[in-house]
């Protein structure tokens, strides 16, 4: 299953505020790529550009999927989802007044996912047994960690080829962060996904990443071809450890 994203010289922002300043990166088929960097350096903006939620002012984003080549800067969000990109949004963005199961079923809204719906639902209940126990509960009444798992499961319901995960650790207790990150890896292996994960908690991100980028001021400041290389990077110590 081919699925590759190539970003070239991307400039984007919100009105007068420019956030990305010539960012280039790529995510190759079957990889788990970590997008690292502290708050305000453009991780979420890049994610939003990838799903057509923010329009770049300059640069290109190319998606190669199933032998097709698509310009992602031209698509609207639901069109990008229709192609097989699924996002676990920052802050989870569940439908709080709907039940757990209704949230999952809505995850399968995209046409290609509807025929797999019972298979995917069984898979999600297998991967997250507590979701099955709570399937009739309103999703908004669960704990933050449980909601994060539901957001992951909902994204899987759309049978994606590419999974974008935006800040999965925000607001979670450390033990839940670990569990959520491990689950991303499990799901990736099970479904043969290509994963791009924006994360501030670089220790956790490195546990599952094949390689990564460090963003500073809207550009790639450091690009590492392996987790070890990221771990050893002087820039990482400087950014995170104040060293």
């Amino acid at each position, binding site marked *: 299953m081919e699925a590759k994203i190539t970003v070239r010289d991307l400039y984007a922002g919100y009105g007068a505020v420019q956030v990305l300043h010539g960012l280039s990166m790529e995510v190759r088929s079957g990889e788990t790529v970590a997008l690292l960097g502290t708050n305000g350096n453009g991780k979420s903006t890049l994610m939003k550009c990838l799903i057509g939620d923010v329009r770049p002012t300059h640069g290109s984003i190319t998606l190669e999927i199933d032998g097709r080549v698509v310009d992602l800067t031209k698509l609207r969000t639901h069109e990008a989802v229709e192609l097989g990109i699924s996002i676990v949004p920052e802050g989870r*963005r569940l439908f*709080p*007044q709907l039940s757990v199961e209704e949230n999952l079923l*809505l995850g399968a809204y995209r046409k290609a996912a509807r025929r797999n719906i019972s298979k995917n639902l069984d898979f999600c209940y297998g991967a997250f047994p507590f979701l099955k126990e709570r399937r009739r509960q309103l999703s908004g009444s669960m704990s933050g960690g449980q909601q994060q798992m539901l957001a992951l499961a909902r994204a899987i319901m759309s049978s994606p080829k590419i999974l974008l995960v935006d800040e999965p650790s925000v607001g979670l207790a450390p033990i839940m962060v670990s569990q959520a990150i491990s689950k991303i890896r499990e799901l990736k292996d099970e479904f043969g996904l290509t994963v791009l994960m924006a994360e501030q908690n670089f220790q956790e991100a490195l546990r599952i990443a094949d390689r990564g980028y460090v963003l500073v001021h809207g550009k790639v400041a450091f690009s590492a071809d392996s987790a070890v290389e990221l771990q050893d990077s002087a820039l990482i110590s400087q950014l995170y450890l104040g060293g």
Partner: protein
Amino acid sequence: MSIDLLLEGLIFGVFVGCFYAAVSIGLSIAFGLLDVPHIAHASFLVLAAYMTFLLGSYGIDPLLAGLIILIPFFALGAVVYRFYYEAFEKRGTDAGVRGIAFFFGIAFIVQVILSLVFGLDQRSVAASYIGSSLGLGEMRIPWRLIVALLVAVGLVLALNLYLSRTFQGRAMRAVAQDPWALKAIGANPVMTKQWAFGLATAATAIGGALLIIVSPVEPSLDRVYIGRTFCVVVLAGLGSMSGTLIAGIMLGVIESLVLTAFGASWAPAVAFGLLLLVLGLRPQGLFGR
């Protein structure tokens, strides 16, 4: 008040209440699910009643007329929502207040057009089930109210199924909670709301046919129903279809008992009184989440 009279009031109230639920169900979608301040709902009801009257003048049965106007009313709803979206909702935060002014304007225009075209006299339709009644022991239940009950139950069942079993229906329930998240799962929130508002208006078309089946209409009848329909929707808890049926029956029964005990002049105050009471004591409604 004798027991017989009380019982009769109660039974009559249940039937009238089902009718109230049927005329409120469109608002339950538009206001309850979609958060659109649709105060022209009652005007659309009266408009549908007049369209039923118009088709009736060609000899078409009012229930059949209700089905015929479904599609034009669906289109009307879709167009009105689209305009509301482009002019108000899209621009953001105070869409609610401006939206009320917009829908108030529509309500006013509908009333003026109906007055000009049909005059101020009461209009009614003829059908075999209007004017006759079913004997039930000592009581006689008018057939038109039995028709209203059946239509109300049918509408609630059909909408409940649609909202819980179809992708479009589930998206309709999700869209007001988080439109951005709906985009992120691959749905188009604006198209979802447009479709839903069309459905709501189509349901209102059937409600309008019932309105003229149950009683004669005049162009200013919307004033009576605006209170009743909002009362039912708020009492139900926003967006609950079964709740709408139960809330409609409650309003019908309370109105009927007040009417029996204190006389007809008090009945119109019941809806607004109940509305204020619910907003004060239990703003999430009886079946709200």
